[in-house]
């Protein structure tokens, strides 16, 4: 699986590459517009992480070129602007997703995985992890081929944890993933604890090993 990161902030692109490489992706980095164009022309990528404000040109122009060449690479725009019209323009130009900076690497990873899944119709839309099976199309979870009755929130949470399996996902990242824009309404992160507890209870009750571990109150980790 090959990714291209087009981002002029060197440290940020390094962090992204570091995290994604450990997830098993091969990562190329382009630090400016020209480098980005060269790389896109020369290789095919499964997913391109594209910053909009780049030295030497706009990421949106890069996206236009890509689409003009009928390339099928998935594109996630990462932008510091967080402007609605820019988001709409990007998505209209054919981007698959839009993430405002700053973002959580675990969130980025989950979105990359989702884009790649959508792009590649391999027939297999099922994630199998030992006794645990997640059907991505039907959005169901089963343990030892028996369906587990879990809520949509819990399904999303499980998928998020699984997408960055064996990595610590911070409480903040989980909170943002679960609550989206309404994160401001919480006084604290107790609600995450409640959701995780319910999810763990349902999975273990169905005979699943307890894969979800708390890491010193810093975050959670799906260990497998």
């Amino acid at each position, binding site marked *: 699986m090959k990714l291209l990161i087009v981002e002029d*902030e060197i*440290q*940020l692109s390094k*962090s*992204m590459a*570091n*995290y994604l490489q*450990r997830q098993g992706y091969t990562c190329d980095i382009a630090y400016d517009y020209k480098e980005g164009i060269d790389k896109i022309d020369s290789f095919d990528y499964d997913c391109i992480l594209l910053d909009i404000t780049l030295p030497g040109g706009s990421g949106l122009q890069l996206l236009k070129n890509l689409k003009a060449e009928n390339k099928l690479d998935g594109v996630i725009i990462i932008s*510091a602007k*967080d*402007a*609605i019209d820019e988001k709409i323009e990007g998505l209209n130009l054919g981007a698959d997703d839009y993430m405002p*900076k*700053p*973002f*959580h*690497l*675990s969130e980025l990873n989950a979105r990359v995985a989702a884009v790649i899944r959508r792009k590649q119709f391999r027939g297999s839309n099922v994630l199998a992890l030992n006794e645990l099976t997640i059907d991505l199309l039907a959005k169901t979870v089963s343990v030892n081929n028996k369906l587990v009755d879990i809520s949509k*929130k819990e399904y999303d949470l499980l998928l998020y944890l699984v997408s960055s399996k064996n*990595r*610590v996902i*911070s*409480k*903040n*990242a989980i909170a943002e993933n679960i*609550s989206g*824009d*309404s994160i*401001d*309404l*919480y*006084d*604290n992160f107790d*609600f995450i604890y409640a959701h995780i507890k319910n999810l763990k209870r349902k999975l273990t009750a169905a005979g699943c090993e307890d894969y979800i571990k708390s*890491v*010193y*109150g*810093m*975050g959670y980790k799906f260990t497998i």
Partner: protein
Amino acid sequence: MKLLQKTIRNYFIYSVFILLVAIPLFYFSIQRIVREDVDGDLLATKEMLRPKISSALLNNTIDQLHFVDQNILISVSTYTKEFDSLTTVEIYDSVAQEVVPHRVLTSNFTVNGKPCFLQVKTSLVDNDELIKSIATVEVILLLLLLAGLFLINRNLAKRIWKPFYTTLGKLRKYKVEKHEPLALSKSSVSEFNDLNTSLEELTVRTHNTYLSQKEFTENASHEMQSPLAVFQSKLELLMQTAPLNEEQAQLIGDLADASQRMTRLNKSLLLLTKIDNNQFADTEKISVDKVLEAFLQQYQPQINEKQIMVSKKFESEIILNVNKALIEILMSNLLGNAIRHNYFDGRIDLLIKENTLIIQNTGKAVALDGQKIFQRFQKDSTDNNSTGLGLEIVKKICAIYNLKISYQFSENLHCFTVQFNNL
């Protein structure tokens, strides 16, 4: 008190004072002058009669000395002491058939060694009437003068101060965030021209300061994004390192919380500058209750978690022609506050009546400072999760659409009222 009233009032008080003093003073001095004149006449008559009396006494014809004038009375006196006395006496006038004041000279003197008594009187009626007429004319003149002064002054002042009031009106409408020059008109008074020039310079300077301040906030929060993104990503990578002991994990967790807060603060600041920059210009028709309903649904998990009882009473429909994103931010901030600052098992009342939206909720049993809550960073110091910018954003949005927002606290309910009258 208005400027015009103040200047005119002083003139008026002075004029009335002068009038009140001048009229009696004038009256009495004229009266005195006339009295003196009459007295002089009476004494002159006495001096004129003296030789006649003297010759009449010599000839022993004093009893034959008769005058046509009834006002002169002469007789031989037994009293030898000489004196002159002038008095005012009320005497019945048979001609006018009324009692009229008379000035009477009573005189006792000796002529050729013989005492003689003389009384000369003259009616004051004509003189008094003269004085009265003069006084009346004078009063009328003074009053006319006063009224004229008053009117001229008022009109003159009005005309002179007109440019001042025009300037004041324009200044009142001036908004620093909108770049509209004051365009003050030229005046014939140089002080006003100076004032206008200074004001124009001042507003230009203020506007420039405002612009650079806005630009700074914008740039600062924009430039902050990248280091924040780097910081957050490195923290996440740090979380993945092993081995990690509990103390380190705790520190990293705290750092992550802080970075999260910075991110949100930054987002709010960016939003504020975007609102300032008028980046939410396009409008569409939006129903307030539909927006509220949508957010109620979105916030349902949080409402359920706190077991807050929400009651809705939408008596009318408010349709606004506004920017959708802005009105959503406005509603979500107000509703979000009502949820976040609520307690377990609390309640929220949503009421739409005519053109007014009322959101009230239970919460802390103390009223907030209605003056301060809409200012930046006026927040509950214990609440780390709030940026302290929410109500500032609310106020900004209300200002854009001329909505009136107010806060009351009664019966342990925090109540925010938004009036959409001006749309």
